[in-house]
């Protein structure tokens, strides 16, 4: 079910009414759990079984781990959880990718092997809920938390519909304690939740789908090699589109949870105002980058085993992070490039980080601008359909297009709309870099807040529904 659909609006209204009824807290949690299953099954009912398998596996294994003293058995149990969860993820998400790799290797050996296409449908949200259930088992294994006593709470933690299919990836210690006592929703929470939901839908429907996607599609779905200006126009448009799409989804998720009395973690903190790449990854898809840090980078040794090992760990983490996004080598390269940027930044910090020049405002501004430009250019590998296409666009971005024949800049409105939206986005990110959105909004008079919300409603209402799902649904 898409947040930007009328059927979801009716579903949400029903859930909110049900949640306000004077029922026991246990019954209200059960209602939320059932509603979450309905939400998931609206897409493809049979795939709910995978969600149940993942839920039950980690519920049972975490309890067994907590009750087990023998380290070897505990380790086997952890491997069993990893095997089930990553096995499902691997089969449904990476089977085609692995098969392609196998076919390539076999063909290199001179064997003409042409298997049938696997034709496997990717279950919605599997990458998100798999990471969520795994983090629960990891935390119990490491003794950071105890297995939760109430199954309904745990099932709701895995399945809670606002964040089920595209995050934020919530940790058990952030969510489960909220299930202990009834959540009371104040008028302030309602107002803030609906404001976030409105902002998220505005980002998605009006900015991402209405204004930026047509320009990005012109570049990435078009044929031919773009010229310098067209490559930057289309790539900037995609840079804005993916932020507005994904951050919009997260805002909706956090806002809906807020209306139900739950608090979900922040997932974006004005990433296009980042100064440096490590700063970018502390601001972009925070719940994934912190998951990768806590359950991959640090267990690999982090930076505790010397600089070179830290570089290798960083690269490995980012390569896997790239692959998490999609079963394609272009995503691996995208992750690898970010890994290289992080390694280069850490190298520079280690050798020249003590210099005072880094703190001067013009230098910080220049680093911020360079970070944004490089991050934007690197989206090319994330979005392009294959490597030749990505290299065509990447070479145009550095002014090295050989025979450009895809010109987007003659569409005057595209230039104007991308310019206005991206300028607005960058100014907003720069101004809010050290503040919270809530503080900024609450410092304004009520009627300004009301006017902004109503203008966003009008813009959402007048935007034609163009049937686009959220980009991160496919991950």
């Amino acid at each position, binding site marked *: 079910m898409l947040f930007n659909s009328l059927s979801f609006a009716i579903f949400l209204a029903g859930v909110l009414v049900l949640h306000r009824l004077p029922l026991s807290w246990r019954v209200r949690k059960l209602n939320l759990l059932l509603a979450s299953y309905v939400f998931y099954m609206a897409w493809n009912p049979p795939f709910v079984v995978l969600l149940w398998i993942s839920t039950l596996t980690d519920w049972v294994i975490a309890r067994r781990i907590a009750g087990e003293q023998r380290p070897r058995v505990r380790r086997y149990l952890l491997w069993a959880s990893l095997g089930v969860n990553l096995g499902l993820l691997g089969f449904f998400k990476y089977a085609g990718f692995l098969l392609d790799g196998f076919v390539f290797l076999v063909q290199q050996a001179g064997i003409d092997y042409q298997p049938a296409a696997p034709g496997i449908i990717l279950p919605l949200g599997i990458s998100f809920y798999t990471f969520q259930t795994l983090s629960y088992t990891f935390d119990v294994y490491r003794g950071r938390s105890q297995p939760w006593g109430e199954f309904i709470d745990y099932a709701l933690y895995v399945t809670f519909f606002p964040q089920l299919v595209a995050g934020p990836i919530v940790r058990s210690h952030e969510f489960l304690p909220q299930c202990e006592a009834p959540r009371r929703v104040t008028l302030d929470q309602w107002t803030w939740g609906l404001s976030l939901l409105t902002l998220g839908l505005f980002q998605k429907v009006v900015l991402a789908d209405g*204004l930026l996607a047509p320009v990005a599609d012109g570049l990435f779905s078009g044929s031919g090699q773009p010229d310098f200006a067209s490559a930057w126009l289309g790539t900037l448009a995609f840079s804005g589109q993916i932020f507005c799409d994904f951050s919009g989804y997260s805002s909706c998720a956090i806002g809906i949870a807020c209306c139900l009395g739950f608090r979900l973690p922040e997932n974006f903190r004005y990433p296009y105002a980042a100064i440096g790449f490590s700063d970018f990854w502390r601001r972009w898809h925070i719940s994934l980058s912190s998951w990768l840090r806590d359950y991959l980078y640090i267990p690999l040794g982090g930076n505790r085993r010397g600089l070179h090992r830290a570089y290798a760990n960083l690269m490995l983490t980012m390569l896997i992070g790239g692959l998490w996004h999609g079963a394609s080598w272009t995503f691996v390269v995208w992750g690898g490039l970010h890994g290289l940027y992080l390694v280069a930044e850490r190298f520079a910090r280690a050798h020249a980080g003590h210099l005072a020049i880094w703190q001067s405002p013009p230098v910080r501004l220049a680093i911020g601008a360079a970070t944004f430009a490089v991050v934007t250019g690197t989206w090319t590998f994330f979005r392009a359909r294959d490597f030749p296409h990505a290299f065509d666009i990447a070479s145009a971005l550095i002014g090295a297009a050989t025979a450009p024949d895809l010109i987007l800049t003659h569409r005057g*409105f595209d230039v104007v709309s991308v310019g206005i939206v991206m300028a607005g986005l960058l100014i907003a990110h720069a101004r809010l870099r050290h503040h919270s959105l809530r503080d900024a909004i609450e410092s304004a008079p009520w009627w300004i807040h009301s006017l902004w919300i109503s203008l966003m409603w009008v813009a959402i209402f007048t935007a034609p529904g163009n049937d686009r799902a959220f980009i991160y649904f496919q991950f």
Partner: protein
Amino acid sequence: MLIGALVFFALIAGTIEGSWRRLGYVPSILDGVDRWSAERDRAGPGTIALVGSSRVLFNVSIPTLRRRYPEHPVAQLGIGGTLAGAVLRDLAEDPAFDGAVIASMRASAFEPANLDSQQPWVDYYHEEWNVERRISRRLETELASRLAIMNPTLSIRRLGVERVEKGRWLPDRCSSSTAIAASVPTSGFTA
């Protein structure tokens, strides 16, 4: 705050709706992949299915066809800017469809390079067109067919294109009840 937002919304949206109607604009619906899928649902026993590109989409009067053959449901499956091979194949492979096909085709539609130009619509129909989408589509159509403010030709993007690229403030009034804004179906983008 929320009450204030509702009041502002009613005032702004009401003003825009009234302005569009005074200027002669009427409600209209988006001709996207959901509209096409809803039509594809009609293609069952005894249906007359219209297949082709913009020629069949614009040049056939559906009300006239329905009046002439009241016992047969009509499914308008034309898609502008494409060639009809994939839809024709899909209907041929569908055991639930045993009606008549009126196809507007060129020989080039059967060339390998063009055969699949309508395949994204067919894939969307079989893989993503579910109950939830059907309900959403129905609700959106009900609303959009009553409110001029939801007319796709009056969206921010369309108005901006008119202003920046054509130097005028307003688009032509759409004489048809269906605004044409078909685009290749996409779930964000293909990974």
